[in-house]
């Protein structure tokens, strides 16, 4: 049994490193992204092996899923520009001249001491972990939830999460501040053309998948209190639904006018900040929840946050589009 586990883990890690290497060094950008998505899925598996199902969910939904979609969309847009620009932007030529090879080897050699230093640092750690699980378990009851990860994210270290929500909002504002990207192919046509032959299949898929995804999101949100799941996972699944709709050509931005989009995107951050301010005044400490109401407050916070996360991620995917009326 242990041997099997050893073998499995060994293969997993080798596969992980191999995929990373291939993703970073394959000649074709499209396959690089595909390999990167595969890498993300393998990471999710690693998280499961490390008994970190919360991360596994997040990794699968955000790390592999959404990042992959973002990368693919960007590549499609990049290729879409090939018509406008002279140089070859889609396919990267392999570094075959002497200089490039020299740089490759030189930097590899220079990075060796870094590698050894890091390995040495890790291996020098004592064999037993020093963590905070004891403190977390001692205080879990007062946190309002029973899933320790959710307790950390939304109670013990809720301030991190408050800033986190603003990172997302900041990314959206930043992207919008650069103006929308006008290329010869808009986001809908990317979806349409890449899946052109199967557009009816896509539509069916959307009809079937979107409601399921929405239910999954709601479930993840609810279950997060005591089992793996939570706002980020739920939000990203919801975002995936939105992305599907966008790809299928649903005119989401007609539904979500610019102002509504903005309001939805800021709802999470606003609720978070208001709750922070309120708790400071009422409880005397920033983001302090009275244990008897903590569960409810956290669920409320998570629901709004999940909505905002979903909208923001979907808006990130669609680039600068939909920011103006």
């Amino acid at each position, binding site marked *: 049994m242990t041997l099997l586990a050893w073998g499995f883990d060994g293969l997993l890690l080798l596969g992980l490193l191999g995929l990373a290497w291939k993703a970073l060094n394959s000649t074709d950008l499209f396959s690089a992204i595909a390999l*990167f998505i595969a890498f993300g899925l393998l990471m999710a598996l690693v998280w499961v092996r*490390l008994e970190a199902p919360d991360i596994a969910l997040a990794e699968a939904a955000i790390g592999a899923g959404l990042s992959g979609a973002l990368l693919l969309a960007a590549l499609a847009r990049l290729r879409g520009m090939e018509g406008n620009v002279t140089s070859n*932007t889609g396919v990267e030529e392999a570094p075959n001249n002497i200089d490039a090879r020299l740089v490759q080897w030189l930097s590899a050699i220079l990075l060796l001491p870094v590698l050894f230093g890091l390995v040495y640092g890790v291996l020098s750690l004592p064999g037993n972990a020093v963590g905070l699980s004891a403190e977390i378990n001692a205080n879990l009851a007062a946190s309002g939830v029973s899933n320790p990860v959710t307790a950390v994210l939304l109670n013990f270290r809720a301030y991190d999460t408050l800033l986190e929500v603003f990172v997302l909002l900041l990314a959206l504002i930043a*992207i919008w501040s650069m103006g929308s990207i006008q290329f010869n192919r808009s986001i809908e046509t990317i979806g349409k053309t890449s899946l052109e032959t199967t557009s009816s299949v896509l539509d069916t898929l959307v009809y079937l998948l979107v409601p399921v995804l929405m239910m999954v999101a709601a479930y993840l949100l609810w279950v997060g209190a005591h089992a793996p799941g939570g706002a980020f996972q739920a939000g990203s699944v919801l975002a995936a639904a939105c992305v599907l709709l966008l790809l299928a050509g649903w005119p989401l931005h007609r539904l979500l006018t610019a102002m509504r989009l903005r309001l939805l995107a800021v709802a999470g951050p606003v609720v978070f900040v208001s709750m922070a301010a309120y708790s400071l005044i009422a409880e005397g400490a920033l983001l302090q929840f009275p244990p008897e109401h903590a569960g409810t407050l956290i669920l409320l916070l998570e629901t709004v946050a999940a909505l905002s996360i979903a909208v923001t991620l979907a808006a990130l995917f669609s680039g600068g589009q939909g920011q103006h009326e």
Partner: protein
Amino acid sequence: MSSFSFALAGIGLFVLGLHALIVHAHLLRKILAINIMGSGVSLVLVALARRGGDALPDAVPHAMVITGIVVAVSATALALVLMLKLAAETGSATLPDDSPE
């Protein structure tokens, strides 16, 4: 397999990504490299918490990694848009090596 090997794999990913970040000119590849480095750091963060076979997984690194994943996707989205704008401006998704004159 000990948790150290997972951590070492994380270090491996970090250094692989760093190498790719330095040698590859194409921005999309650099963005991939940054993402893979991030995964490596996450792996170190979580794997090391399991040293000594603690019965209860430490939730703090888990929460940190989830936070890290969200940061990564935000940064990726921004980087990709920046890359597209740059490509639209210069016709190439690489960094121009000359400094502005």
